[in-house]
């Protein structure tokens, strides 16, 4: 009955003529993956191949990860049996329309070192989960690059989105160019271009992006060159006086300040100069002097042995702390001529078109009082009924047209309050806070250098406006509240860093609270 002798016909290893080529496209919904799949199918058919493409459309179209899958084989007169979805370890060409999608393809096993050519655009489209972290939640591109190098037979990656944008078209065109340029399919460049031409819409920009990506891929395919041509920061000396203009007296003041920066230890200079520019731009030359006075206190404690980490951290965070975000700063920044130019460039407004700019403000009593002389401001704030009464009049959204004269003039006026800023309530509050924090950091630095640096770095937590700012303040306070519990521990700096990182993970600081609980247990068992 049982026939064990059934002979096996040699089916394995079909000749090259009958081989099925398998190509998968991983894209983010809305990137035009469907167009790309249609083009590839068309190219295959133009070259005497039978091709089949499939996709999972529907809900996945809406910004989610999407797969298009194409199989093709030379037309021998018989219909091949094609699969409808890619299999692990069985993909010849994988096109990822975004870098993390390349990572996803590798995780899913669609990229194998023996056979897969991985063509990926190196640009990033941040996922929602990456964007909503209060800190920097973005995934590491380096890790994907490194794994891709090892996982693929060939890895061709460059910014195809940029090429597409430069040529005024969608990424599908540059992806097709990269595919053609990679020379993994036995088709001529002309047949790709014919497929684009047959599409009929936006042919010219598509061909341009195709061509640019084609050349780029060819270049990589023949002589692999590193993607990152790191641009080195220009030498320090050339910067300190260049690009600064203004009245003679102010320039003289600036040169004196610049000279003080030049006298700082070399590793500190770059950050200190940037910080100095920021604070002078925020207020005035004298404010720059205050900044450098504060800097000197850190430098006095510092030495080359530590790489001047304390001073560099101070240079950065002092500048940020001194340039707090008040109404004056916002109004000042929004009324500059340079801002005009930047907006025009950002929205791509061409010469001859008129631009109307609307700003969204929502002042509250806190912002109002902060912009009053310190005495008056705190008088109001200490009277809740009066404050609430005023708040009802102030607290609402205001849409201000800064292309119109009255809107602009109002902001211009507020920006002009700068010269009285030192007398205003907000300034007093900020200075007190800054001094407390800075003194705390320096005091700790004397005992525990690293801890001092980490306390300085905690300034990173303070950002945002209104409620967000209040929440940030609270996180800052909560992190530093651990100092008492960490007293005398060698790893105190490490813990402050960990707490800070936890605080940047979520909005309310739930992770931070968890980490603080851990720290609280230290008291029971001293290290």
């Amino acid at each position, binding site marked *: 009955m049982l026939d064990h002798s059934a002979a096996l016909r040699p089916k394995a290893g079909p000749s090259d003529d009958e081989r099925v080529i398998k190509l998968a496209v991983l894209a983010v919904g809305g990137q035009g993956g469907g167009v790309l799949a249609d083009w590839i199918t068309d190219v295959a058919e133009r070259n005497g191949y039978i091709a089949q493409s499939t996709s999972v459309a529907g809900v996945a179209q809406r910004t989610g990860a999407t797969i298009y899958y194409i199989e093709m084989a030379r037309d021998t007169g018989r219909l091949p049996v094609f*699969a*409808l979805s890619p299999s692990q370890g069985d993909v010849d060409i994988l096109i990822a329309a975004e870098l993390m999608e390349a990572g996803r393809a590798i995780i899913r096993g669609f990229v194998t070192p*023996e056979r897969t050519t991985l063509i990926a655009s190196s640009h990033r489209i941040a996922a929602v989960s990456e964007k909503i972290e209060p800190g920097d939640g973005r995934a590491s591109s380096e890790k994907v690059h490194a794994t891709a190098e090892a996982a693929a037979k060939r890895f061709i990656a460059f910014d195809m989105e940029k090429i597409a944008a430069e040529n005024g078209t969608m990424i599908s065109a540059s992806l097709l160019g990269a595919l053609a340029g990679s020379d993994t399919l036995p088709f001529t460049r002309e047949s790709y271009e014919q497929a684009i031409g047959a599409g009929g819409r936006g042919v010219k920009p598509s061909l341009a992006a195709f061509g640019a990506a084609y050349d780029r891929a060819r270049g990589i395919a023949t002589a692999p060159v590193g993607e990152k041509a790191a641009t080195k920061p220009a030498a320090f000396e050339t910067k300190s006086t260049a690009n600064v203009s203004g009245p003679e007296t102010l320039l003289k003041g600036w040169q004196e300040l610049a000279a003080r920066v030049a006298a700082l230890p070399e590793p500190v200079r770059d950050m200190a100069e940037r910080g100095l520019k*920021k604070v002078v731009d925020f207020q005035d030359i004298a404010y720059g002097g205050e900044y450098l006075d504060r800097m000197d206190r850190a430098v006095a404690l510092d030495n080359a042995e530590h790489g001047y980490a304390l001073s560099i951290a101070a240079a950065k965070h002092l500048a940020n702390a001194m340039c707090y975000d008040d109404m004056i700063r916002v109004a000042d920044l929004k009324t500059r001529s340079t801002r005009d130019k930047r907006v025009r460039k950002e929205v791509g407004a061409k010469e001859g078109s008129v631009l109307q700019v609307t700003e969204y403000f929502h002042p509250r009593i806190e912002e109002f009082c902060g912009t009053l002389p310190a005495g008056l401001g705190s008088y109001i704030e200490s009277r809740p009924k009066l404050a609430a009464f005023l708040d009802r009049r102030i607290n609402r959204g205001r849409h201000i047209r800064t292309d119109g004269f009255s809107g602009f003039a109002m902001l211009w006026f507020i920006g002009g309050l700068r010269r009285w800023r030192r007398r205003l309530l907000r300034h007093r509050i900020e200075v007190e806070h800054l001094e407390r924090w800075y003194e705390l950091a320096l005091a700790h630095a004397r005992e525990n250098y690293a801890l001092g640096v980490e306390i300085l770095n905690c300034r990173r937590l303070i*950002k945002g406006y209104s409620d967000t700012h209040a929440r940030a303040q609270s996180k800052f306070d909560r992190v530093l509240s651990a100092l008492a519990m960490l007293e005398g521990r060698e790893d105190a700096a490490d813990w402050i860093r960990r707490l800070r990182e936890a605080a940047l993970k979520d909005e309310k600081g739930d992770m931070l609270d968890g980490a603080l609980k851990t720290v609280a247990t230290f008291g029971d068992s001293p290290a």
Partner: protein
Amino acid sequence: MAERSFAKEVEKLRLGAGEEFAGEGILAITKALLQCGVGYVGGYQGAPISHLMDVLADAQDILGELGVHFEASASEATATAMLAASVHYPIRGAATFKSTVGTNVASDALANLASGGVTGGALIIVGEDYGEGSSIMQERSHAFAMKSQVWLLDPRPNLPSIVKAVEDGFELSEASNTPVMLQVRIRCCHVHGRFIAKDNKRPPMSVADALAAPRRDTGRIVLPPASFLHEKEKVAKRWPAAVDFIRERKINEIFGSDHGSVGIVMQGGMYNSIIRALQRLGLADTYGDTDVSLYVLNAVYPLVDDEFLAFCEGKQAVLVVEEGQPNYIEQAFAAMLHKAGRGTKLVGKEHLPMAGEYTGQVMLDGIGSFLHAYAPHLLPGEVRAPNKLGEGVDTADLVNVVPGRPPGFCVGCPERPIFAATKLVEQELGKHHIASDIGCHLFSIMPPFELGATTMGYGLGPASASAFNSPEAKRRSISFVGDGGFWHNGLTSSIGNAVFNKNDGVIVIVDNFYSAATGGQDILSSRANNKTKSTKHPIDEAVKGMGVKWLRHIDRTYDVGKMQATLREALTTEEKGPKVIVASSECMLNRQRRERPGIDKAIKAGERVVKPKFGVDEDICTGDHACMRLSGCPSLSVKTLDDPLRDDPVASIDQNCVGCGNCGEVADAAVLCPSFYRADVVHNPGRWDRFLESARRAAIGLLQRRRESRRLMFADA
């Protein structure tokens, strides 16, 4: 207007005998219907079958020429009930919808249709939304076929096979007086392929002919005693007729050697992946030629006992490849072998996963494991004892790096501000029980909104909150329903129910002018002019008609402040009974598709056009991303500044921004930060525009120069 237009492709439906058709699976199905002389077609959209409805809608001229009636049904139940036209009249009819959610909705009508049986062929084309990319619960249509005893076809996933299945389906339906379900899987609907066409046929009897000469037969009506007879008829007459048809017409196919010791039985839809697995095992060639015996069930219900037993003849072991669970087919075959006293070993889920999609790897592993166990001699040496080439790279690290990318709201989606407002209201009044519904608005369950606790079915959002109605409750429930779900059944199951039961909850009806999630088809409340359908029926009127007293209409959802205030009022008002908010703004995807070509043309033609776009002042943005936690717009993202003083990336708005206004409104309503600005570019400004501009420029420039001449300016600051 549907998201995708098939206006060009439907011309292929006119192809005549002998011509080659090339295109997508769904288009091939439509062509097959016309070749079969179908008299009427209808259905309800939903992936993966949405495009079939779009094709039919775009093909109305061609349908009209042939005298075929097309119905965009209100629901799957409506679509199935429509097939009643085939009960007494010899007219072929077809309905299509997504399965299994649509089949659930349709099951009442399906049971009645199946009980009385049909005279004309009745075909239900179900788009099986199973496996990767699916948006619904994972169940099988097979169970519906079994319980109502309608026949289920599952053809091999290539165009000639699908087209043949449509033809076979009608004939099978007529031969057995039973409706037939034809299941097409998700990728098969979108597969691009070819087949040789036949001429289209006019229906021998049209619905107009039927109306002119009405017929009735009490024996076909589901009412005792006829209904008891129907049950007997199903097993005594219809079932054997179906089995005979399937056997005689060789609906099921046998491939490969007929004398092997092992065989594989499969659902037709699994054929291609099984051949791929055999190819990879070195047991099949590019064209599917193989020595392994294959029994392909293009008809998966009913099964043909003697055909199966003949296939098993002489075989030591047979593998059943049946995707999904429970494994009805495997159980049925096991019973057949057992009852026939056969020694053939039947295996299935021992070698394949009990649940989940049978992907390429699953198939390779499963078939490999089966052959290892029962026919190792078939396997080439390298498969039996593979020399490992190395495990590839370690991706464990990468798994933690690559972020998930679930679908979300599109750029400029009008539903985003509704959920931003809901989140803001919750920050004020605390967490509420929120019931979600099916539709784009269900993306609110994802970050950054993370709202919604359940989703119970299309149009059932408010119904699923109906238990949360207690006189002691201090907090009201909030429920959402889309306009699609509202018209599908929500008006009665959710709104009517809430009125009747004096539900005190808050109901938000998300009105985006289309059945948007399924591809932007028109519905009753659509604002579009539709040539063949009646639109512009306001949801408000329907809600009022149902007896709702507390009703608010928001005609611009982007007004986050107003949305927030309305929600707050609904949650806190003293008034009893359901509080209904209709939040209307057009689906941005559709709006852009509609408006963009016109705007581009107007700009080219030199007309004055104002185009809005949002931007962020990067030196004012502090990088706290509070705005993104209330948005999730793909266009609003993060970017690194070239400034060592700044640690965290700032907000940035890319070129895809459509200027919907959400960013500014949210920043305002949530009191976030003043870094957002809206820039309206006036293309081709008129004289007045230019005059005003130059006057303003002059005045503003004066102020700017005055200040800037008295301060230090840093070129790179």
